[in-house]
């Protein structure tokens, strides 16, 4: 799968020379000199080990973190020049363990951003129903339940529905399927991959799982110790001549390496 040509209007997210250091202390750099563009409608996977800076990059996109140096642009505007609340309401966010609100019902969880955006209650209810159906949960059965009454996989489906609620053009996903058992994970990955193609969202997906990266990513950005070491399609990734890429490819079976 080839990346689309890079015209300015096709760029949804852009990192321009971004450094991020904890408390702005240079010796505590988490992200070093990252420049990267995410194209409209693509799924870009940020792949790396724990501590490689993947999650930090994600949080720099929705302004939960601010670059120490450089800038991050979302839809052409620097995150530092945008009201963070407004910015975040236009960006869906899915995390490991879903982070659902335990005191809200499933319907209230999914309808949160629309309610913050002051939609009419009937419109919220209709949207919640539509979304639960989209993620494969029967609305009458699940709407009134609380998160604790759901399995991990079901909770994660709710997490995806909640992120999609206000129909944001961008989705950020931080190891969303990481805490699930392998069977449920594979099931959700397949469904999500189909959903992502259908919805035409710009998705930035963080994972440390090379299989997940190859399955879901149109492009894979490989991070190591806060630096971007490689960027390309899954096919390119398998042919990369970089020790960190080799380390990840070594996790694959020979057959998986061949058929991609």
């Amino acid at each position, binding site marked *: 799968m080839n990346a689309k040509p890079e015209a300015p209007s096709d760029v949804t997210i852009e990192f321009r020379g971004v450094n991020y250091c904890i408390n702005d202390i240079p010796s505590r750099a988490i992200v070093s000199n990252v420049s990267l563009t995410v194209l409209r409608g693509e799924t870009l996977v940020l792949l790396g080990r724990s501590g490689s800076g993947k999650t930090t990059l994600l949080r720099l996109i929705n302004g*939960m973190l601010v670059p120490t140096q450089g800038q991050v642009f979302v839809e052409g505007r620097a995150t530092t020049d945008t009201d963070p609340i407004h910015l*975040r*309401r236009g*960006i869906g966010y899915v*995390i490991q363990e*879903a*982070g659902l*609100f*335990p005191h809200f019902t499933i319907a209230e969880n999914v309808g949160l951003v629309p309610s913050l955006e002051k939609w009419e209650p009937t419109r919220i209810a209709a949207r919640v129903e539509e979304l639960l159906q989209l993620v494969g949960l029967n609305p009458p059965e699940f709407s009134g339940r609380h998160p604790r009454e759901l399995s991990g996989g079901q909770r994660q489906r709710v997490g995806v529905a909640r992120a999609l609620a206000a129909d944001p053009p961008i989705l950020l996903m931080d190891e969303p399927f990481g805490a699930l058992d392998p069977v449920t994970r594979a099931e959700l990955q397949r469904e999500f991959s189909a959903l992502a193609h259908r919805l035409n969202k710009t998705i930035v997906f963080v994972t440390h799982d090379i299989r997940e990266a190859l399955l879901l990513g149109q492009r894979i950005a490989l991070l190591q110790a806060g630096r971007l070491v490689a960027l390309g399609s899954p096919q390119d990734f398998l042919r990369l001549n970089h020790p960190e890429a080799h380390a990840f490819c070594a996790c694959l079976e020979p057959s998986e390496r061949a058929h991609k």
Partner: protein
Amino acid sequence: MNPWTFFVTHRSEIFSATLDHVTLVLIAMAFAIAIAVPLGMLIVQHRHLRSIALGIASVFQTIPSLALFGFLIPIPFIGGIGRRTAIVALILYALLPILRNTYVGLSGVDPTILEAAEAMGMTNTQILLRVRFPLALSIILAGIRTATVITIGVATIAAAIGAGGLGTFIFRGVAMVSDSVILAGAIPAALLAIFADLLLGQLERRLKVV
């Protein structure tokens, strides 16, 4: 006179002292909650106020209750002999358990949930009122419960500065060296404390999320 006969012959007096006692406790608790819960919300968001507020509240707790009542008497407006002074002292006493539990409850919310709330574009106030507060409610209530039980006990000492309540019997009994009279104050006070503890404990369990 055995305790039971004293109780029967003085039942209306004991009953009205119990009502006074409950009134004293309810007024003090209402003020303590109205001060400590918002203050707890404030110190969750303002780090620098945290140790000051918790420190001051702890100092009040360390002052022996009888001394605290005594200290307040000469202070203008809030001082003097009677109920008003007693209520002020009881409020100061009840602050710490409520303030500490409010702070602990609000700051102890699962970081994943807070991360999600922030990422959804909730403002700090929305996160505080719609996420932190409901999730901390049972812990805040546990603080209110502790404070209520303490206040019911400490309020008996308020009789020393003329605030009335069940302490009246206790002090009178001590002066008369009469167990019956002491028990006429001590038993209803203990029952009140047990009753408040059970009632608030039930409410606390009902409000617990997860």
